[in-house]
């Protein structure tokens, strides 16, 4: 859903790269073995080809060294028609028997990764597929790889938590989820490297809603981004607000007061989003299930006061990109392009590259 590099604004990219050279490789703390994934949900890349993989069924988070690094990451477009049928073929089944849960771009190689469930029942097998710029699609072998594992929550025989989105930002993995029994959404911060001492902590995000404060609403998707030296999170909630809060506020057990910077309209489900720059100005691209893709101007978001008025759609200005209707997933491929999963009018599910609007 999100790649780490997506969070870096152009203004901070240089500084971040300089800092990275001084740090150890992110794979240094990982140990060779076979990650015992029970399922696979949202995925997100960190630096150095490290992929963070959520496993909702065992309520765990994995950091896996893909070993997929290139001196010069591939550029250009990636396009695969009927991607679901091709993925299913690699997994030895048909398209009706798979779920593509997420896609992510590895900033270290430019390759696209797909989180896939092979099967739809409780015994579905987790699968990770890699797609390169030549169109080669392969199942990533998860045996004898360097990895690390962190628990997310205690489970019981019936209780689980769905993971809606994950992202690596500033030495921690943020995981948004929702329980299947209690009314309790969670945003967890899991410090990386994963160690016994680095236990996941839960953070409560309150956001203003018409003068009241709302919490426990599930975060559907979120994206980190840098602005004026501060790393922020923009989180899209299922009940329509777009909320901003600072990453530095995410302390263990903290209650964080977010700012509602936009209301995105009813009957709508935010699906995925990314932040990019165009003409020196920051934008958010947000895919929705009913309202298509919104291009939202982030200029001035740092000074947003929060929405209190009862208007149908309020806050940051946005345009609807009609030609991108049907998008299910998107990820930033380069500074000026995104890779998308899109359901075409004829029903085919295609993977395509589109210029950032």
């Amino acid at each position, binding site marked *: 859903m999100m790649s780490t590099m997506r969070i870096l604004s152009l203004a901070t990219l240089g500084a971040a790269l300089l800092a990275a050279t001084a740090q150890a490789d992110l794979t240094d703390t990982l140990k060779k073995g076979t990650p015992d994934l029970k399922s696979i949900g949202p995925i997100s890349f960190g630096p150095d080809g490290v992929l963070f993989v959520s496993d909702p069924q065992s309520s765990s988070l994995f950091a896996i060294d893909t070993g997929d690094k290139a001196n010069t990451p591939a550029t250009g477009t990636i396009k695969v028609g009927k991607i679901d049928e091709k993925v299913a073929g690699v997994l030895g089944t048909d398209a009706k028997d798979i779920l593509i849960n997420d896609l992510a771009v590895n900033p270290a190689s430019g390759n696209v990764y797909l989180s896939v469930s092979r099967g739809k029942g409780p015994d579905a097998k987790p699968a990770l597929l890699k797609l390169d710029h030549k169109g080669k699609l392969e199942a990533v072998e998860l045996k004898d790889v360097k990895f690390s594992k962190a628990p997310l929550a205690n489970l019981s025989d019936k209780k689980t938590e769905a993971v809606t989105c994950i992202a690596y930002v500033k030495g921690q993995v943020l995981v948004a989820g929702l329980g299947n029994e209690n009314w309790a959404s969670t945003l967890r911060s899991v410090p990386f490297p994963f160690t016994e001492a680095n236990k996941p902590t839960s953070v409560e995000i309150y956001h203003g809603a018409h003068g009241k404060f709302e919490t426990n609403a599930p975060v559907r998707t979120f994206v980190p981004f840098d602005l004026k030296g501060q790393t922020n999170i923009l989180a899209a909630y299922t009940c329509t607000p777009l909320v901003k809060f600072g990453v530095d506020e995410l302390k263990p057990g903290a209650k964080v007061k977010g700012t509602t910077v936009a209301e995105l309209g*009813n009957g709508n489900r935010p699906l995925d989003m990314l932040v990019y720059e165009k003409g020196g100005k920051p934008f958010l691209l947000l895919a929705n299930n009913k309202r298509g893709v919104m291009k939202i101007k982030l200029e001035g978001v740092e000074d947003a006061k929060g929405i209190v008025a009862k208007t149908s759609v309020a806050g940051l200005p946005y345009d609807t990109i009609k030609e991108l209707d049907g998008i299910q997933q998107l990820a930033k491929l380069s500074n000026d392009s995104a890779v998308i999963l899109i359901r075409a009018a004829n029903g085919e599910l295609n993977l395509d590259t589109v210029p950032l609007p």
Partner: protein
Amino acid sequence: MLCCLLAPGCGARERPPASVTATPQPPSIRLGADEQAFEVVNLDAGQLSQFGKPGWPAERWPDVLAVRVGPEAPPMAGAWDVADGVLRFRPRFPLRPGMRYTVAYTAPGANAAPLVAEFALPKLETPPTIVEQVFPTSDLLPENHLKFYIHFSGPMSRGEAYEHLQILDGNGKPIESAFLELGEELWAPDGQRFTLFFDPGRIKHGLKPREDLGPVLEKGKRYTLVVGPGWHDAHGNTLKAGFRKTFQVGEPIEKLVDPKTWQLELPTVGGSDPLTLVLPMPHDHALLHRLVWVADEHGRKVAGKTTVTDQEKRWQFTPDKPWPAGKFTLVADTKLEDLAGNNLERQFEVDVFRPVEKEIKKDTIELPFVLQP
């Protein structure tokens, strides 16, 4: 068991008897003994020796032996090896009942047509899946009712739940945008229980969805939850039948769950009658099972079985061993919810932003009781 569908080049399942003649057998393709691998047999030693040599490029394997699920499908992921005179392909993922697999062996450098065989796993015969129960079982629900649990007789498929769920008003008209729809869907690990939340934005006052569309449920009106029959189970079969639950809507519940209103009915010492907790109103079925238990005087959980009946107003605990005399405690986690999502420490409707250091947080409440001989 896999069936071999095409005769040409398709090896018989029966292995040949011990060779008594020197007549070479033609190469053929067969299923491995564990039915999870495809094997090319009767290859001559010269052919086999080329594979797997140092310098043999792994990416060439699919050109030699490929398994596909359709003419345009890419080769399946898996591993190749040569052992005991057999070239073998083992798929990464188990073969799936009902699928047809095409296996093609192409001898490197040969101009001959590939050796091709098709195999199919028969579809599994499974009993039809039904909706066994929907919780809450009461036909009177509060205006701010939060969620349903739909229990199935067998495991279900993910990815299509919301296509098959509707709330109808009293005129049978579907209410739009009634539910919280999460692409990940909220299933129990066994795939037999689905949690369906109403859109909280239409329950809480002041939130935008409610401001614009109004509440889903209104006091005094009648509604029907509909589970469509087209929902697929984990084996790809649709439900045997749909399911409907009609209910009346009453007053909203806008207060904390209050243990002072609970009544305990104590069992007798030496017997195995249940300890009974009577609640003044229905509570969350799943949470009653998970978040209420009995501890002995040392705080250890007493082993036994919990049942919830009487429209989720009656919680009962039957111990594995007869009750001894002594001091016990009924323990309830403060996260226990009523039907409207209120728990023992926080109302669903009211969220107040408070600095964490000022909050007095208690994880459980305890109701002590004594069993006397």
